[in-house]
């Protein structure tokens, strides 16, 4: 089952430029929390700090406290171990091009030393079913490469890959922005049903998407978290004027 995320005074830098200022928030378990804001507001950076992907950029660093369930992300465990507990789906679908569909889904397990082949079959099937891709690919699991699928299918493959390691939290960085409307719809429905088992944080620049899939929404502006509340409240009666300006389209 999912666990809650607690963030306490998170700050992040790219070299000397500060990108996030004292972010403090909570994303409740088994719910989806959307992160919205104009370009460059730090929403992607924020989400990438949750699983320490931010550190993969040279000269980038972050300070503060992030707790995922009982796990303290920045103290006590290495970045690599953290990322095995958290799943991430990226903006542009990125299946491993030289691997088959089966191997793509199993990658998170195989590359980390898990080799029980019998169990792997079961896990791959379950993950593909969870991400609503099983029926479309079950006959060509090992024959087709991950990159030969359509855009929407590739993204669902990436979701299956992330889910195969049974993460507690699923982070999604604008997962639908490179997809067509039909695929987007399929994935939004998927998110709706994944909430039962996982805690989801989804970055989106599409406000309607936020209101469709997330119970909570946080509005970011210039590296600061301006407001975090129930989605309906944010989009109907926001407390901060800046939030109101954004959702009514005055900027961004």
């Amino acid at each position, binding site marked *: 089952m999912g666990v809650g995320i607690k963030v306490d005074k998170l700050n992040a830098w790219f070299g000397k430029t500060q990108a996030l200022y004292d972010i403090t928030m909570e994303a409740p378990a088994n719910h989806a929390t959307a992160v919205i804001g104009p370009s460059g507001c730090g929403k992607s950076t924020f989400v990438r700090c949750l*699983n320490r*992907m931010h550190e*993969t950029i*040279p000269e980038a660093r972050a300070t503060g406290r992030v707790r995922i369930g009982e796990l303290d992300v920045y103290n006590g465990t290495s970045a*690599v*171990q*953290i*990322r*095995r*507990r958290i*799943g*991430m789906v*990226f903006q*542009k679908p*990125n*299946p*491993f*091009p*030289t*691997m*088959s569909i089966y*191997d793509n889904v*199993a*990658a*998170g397990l*195989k*590359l*980390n030393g898990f080799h029980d082949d019998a169990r792997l079959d079961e896990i791959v099937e379950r993950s593909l079913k969870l991400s609503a891709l099983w029926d479309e690919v079950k006959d060509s699991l090992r024959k087709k*490469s991950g990159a030969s699928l359509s855009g929407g299918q590739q993204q669902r493959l*990436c979701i299956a*890959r*992330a889910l195969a*390691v049974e993460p507690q939290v699923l982070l999604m960085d604008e997962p639908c922005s490179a997809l067509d409307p039909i695929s987007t719809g399929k994935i939004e429905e998927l998110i709706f049903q994944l909430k039962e088992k996982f805690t989801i944080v989804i970055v989106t620049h599409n406000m309607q998407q936020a209101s469709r899939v997330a119970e909570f929404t946080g509005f970011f502006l210039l590296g600061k978290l301006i407001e975090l509340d129930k989605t309906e409240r944010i989009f109907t009666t926001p407390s901060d004027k800046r939030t109101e300006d954004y959702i009514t389209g005055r900027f961004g």
Partner: protein
Amino acid sequence: MPENVTATSDFAAAPISLWRRGMNFFATVAAAAAVVLVLLPLGAVFGYLVYKGIGSINWAFLTQTPKPVGEAGGGMANAIAGSAFILLIASSIGVPIGIGAGIYLAEYGRDRLGNIIRFTADVLNGVPSIVVGIVAYGIVVLSQGHFSALAGGVALAIMMIPTIARTTEEMLLLVPNTVREAAYGLGVSRWRTTLSITLRTATSGVITGVMLAFARVAGETAPLLFTAFGNQYWNWKINQPTAALSLQIFTYAISPFDEWHRQAWAGALILIVLIVAAVSAVRIVAGRGMLKGAN
């Protein structure tokens, strides 16, 4: 309609001067002539290789060692085997180091040190092969006290390393960063990502680079002149002078014996065929290895 409009259309309709048209035509002819002049020797070389060499390639040639001076017959079997032996030594040293250097440049070397290494690799690529031979002589032959296949292998390895490093780097940089990120996101360690994901994705390109370096050194003679040195007999010992196909062709070609000249052509034909074959074989293997497992 105003007067000048007509004048403009008159000008547009006026013919380009004869001189300019002539120059244009001449330029085309000259360029085409250049192409013909350049292709002529290519055709001539291949043509003569086949014409003069094919008759002398027989079973004896491929399986026997050279006969003493003046005697007819004999072959280049030991030279062919020797070349393979030396190339094997060279590849086992040059390929791992070259690929390693390429990985360093692509994944870790985006800083000053990386630039220095990159520049140095390009410089190394331009060193004349005879100079590499002198260096291998100094490092290996002098310390061992005799010519050897090892010395020849070292000389060729020195030539392979910078080429392989630069092409490997190029191929790795072509792998989009999103692929690496996908692996990091799954909690795969950096070394595992680099080897099992990044390098695996770039495999066919890297193999092409290795094959190019291999083909380049396979025909080299100069660096072997005073390292491997040549040998009339079979040799499988790494510390003894060894025959090589290119060396044999050279020795025979400059000799005064017709018999040896005949064999030089045959040897040359075999050398070019082997180079082309090696290149194609690696290409096929690389192509087949595209869809492999995560491990």
